[in-house]
């Protein structure tokens, strides 16, 4: 800083790259980008040309991609889709809580908690084995049929409960895998400092386990977001049911495509997020760290 016209010395070593090599690398990068752009354009144009030139295309277009149908049904289906989103938003936190509780119950070792362990094991065995749609039927029609007082009769409630029961069995296994993946030496280190078993789980094992299972959990979230459509079989009018109703008036299948696009619009960002988290945790493992 004492002399003018020189760069301040930050003390950091400056990486040296051969200028010729750098120039070659830059030109290769430009060339690669151009090739990739051209080839994708060619594929897209060829694909569109191939599909639209097919003999049956006008019929396919009118049946599945009718602009008029999109215009008339999108508002209804979108507002019905809001129900799918709400089911998801209610079910997901419950699934996380129930799943974690089951995973922790299965991990207990005290003889006093043996019944808890048995219940948790039986729960996962049973509810992972029953098709979710069957459970939706069973609870959605079955429980209101009991006519119990003080118990909600709304099939929407019981359809959501069915999703929670089914998915928490899966999520419990994901949590359990995460807990098992924390090396026993971590537990030994925590116990050797005088932390109790519960404290060790709470402060040492779980934080590491949860971090590791975020990507597989997101995968289950994506699946759940789609499976909210299963609730339609017992009555509630969500996106799929609304599309079915619209379609039955006109014998046009565009409403289904509209519903599908709405689902995709929500699951694709979630998928990308899961991919990104997966890649990040792989990078961290590769670097030998787990922060």
């Amino acid at each position: 800083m004492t002399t003018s016209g020189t760069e301040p010395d930050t003390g950091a070593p400056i990486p040296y790259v051969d200028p010729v090599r750098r120039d070659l690398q830059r030109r290769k990068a430009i060339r690669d980008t151009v090739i990739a752009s051209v080839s994708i354009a060619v594929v897209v144009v060829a694909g569109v040309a191939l599909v639209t030139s097919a003999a049956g295309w006008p019929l396919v277009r009118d049946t599945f991609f009718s602009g008029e149908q999109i215009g008339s049904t999108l508002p209804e289906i979108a507002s019905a889709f809001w129900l799918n989103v709400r089911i998801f938003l209610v079910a997901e936190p419950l699934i996380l809580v129930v799943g974690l509780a089951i995973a922790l119950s299965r991990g207990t070792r005290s003889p006093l908690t043996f019944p808890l362990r048995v219940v948790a094991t039986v729960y996962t065995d049973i509810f992972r084995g029953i098709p979710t749609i069957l459970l939706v039927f069973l609870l959605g029609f079955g429980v209101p049929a009991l006519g119990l007082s003080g118990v909600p009769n709304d099939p929407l409630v019981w359809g959501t409960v069915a999703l929670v029961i089914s998915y928490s069995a899966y999520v419990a296994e994901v949590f359990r895998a995460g807990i098992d993946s924390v090396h026993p030496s971590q537990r030994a280190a925590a116990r050797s400092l005088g932390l109790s078993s519960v404290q060790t789980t709470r402060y040492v094992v779980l934080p590491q386990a949860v971090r590791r299972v975020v990507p597989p959990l997101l995968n289950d979230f994506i699946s759940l977001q789609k499976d909210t459509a299963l609730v339609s079989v017992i009555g509630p009018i969500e996106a799929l049911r609304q599309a079915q109703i619209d379609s039955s008036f006109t014998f046009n299948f565009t409403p289904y495509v509209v519903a599908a696009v709405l689902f995709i619009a929500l699951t694709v960002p979630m998928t990308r997020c899961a991919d990104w988290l997966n890649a990040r945790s792989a990078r961290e493992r590769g670097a030998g760290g787990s922060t």
Partner: protein
Amino acid sequence: MSGTTLAIEGVHKAFGTNPVLRALDLRVAEHEVVVLIGASGSGKSTLLRCINGLLPVDAGRIMLDDDIEVTALGADLDEVRRRVGIVFQSFNLFPHRSVLDNVTLAQRKVLGRSKAEAEQHGHDLLTSFGLSDKAMSFPDRLSGGQQQRVAIVRALAMDPEIMLFDEITSALDPQLVGEVLDVVRGLSHAGMTILMATHEMAFAQECADRVCFLDGGAVLEEGTAQQVFGDAREQRTRDFLARVRAR
């Protein structure tokens, strides 16, 4: 009090049908530095893990300060572990917590210290072991030697009466061993009671008040470093030392 900190009497421990400790006796007095030597599989690590109750014994007795029996059924092992610090070969720092959090967690949750109190104590210890600039780092940003020093600080932060060191330099690159041994040396000069399993014979020779050679699950020979390294009574001790020195 200048009595016996640790008394081990006739301890047996087997893994399945494989006996590891066989009628092992050992006493460690307050302020004493006792070094355990012996081949891999001679039971050094197993003994250390039995002392703080990480492993249950099959028979025998381990007494801490004559007032708490570690091996009693229903013994308060959390109390034992509050008073006995242990450092492992593989550091076992908590990777999701900063160095300072590693050092303060047990102080707060076990000893009930306030956050400020625990952090003050942690900072003081980290500073005295040359780690003050690493307080906010995560373990994976530290060298092996630094990680092991943090592990020692983490155990010391609980103000233990005795420190157990389980081959704490065996997982380190040779050039990092010195910095960790310096820490142990400092503790021994400060009067800490230490029971240490190690393969660092030069260090044992320099720092140990007493050296115990473990063989076949029991203490085959014990004495001052001078006696054991200079003039071992037992042939098996001499064979072991010859093998170690040949490396």
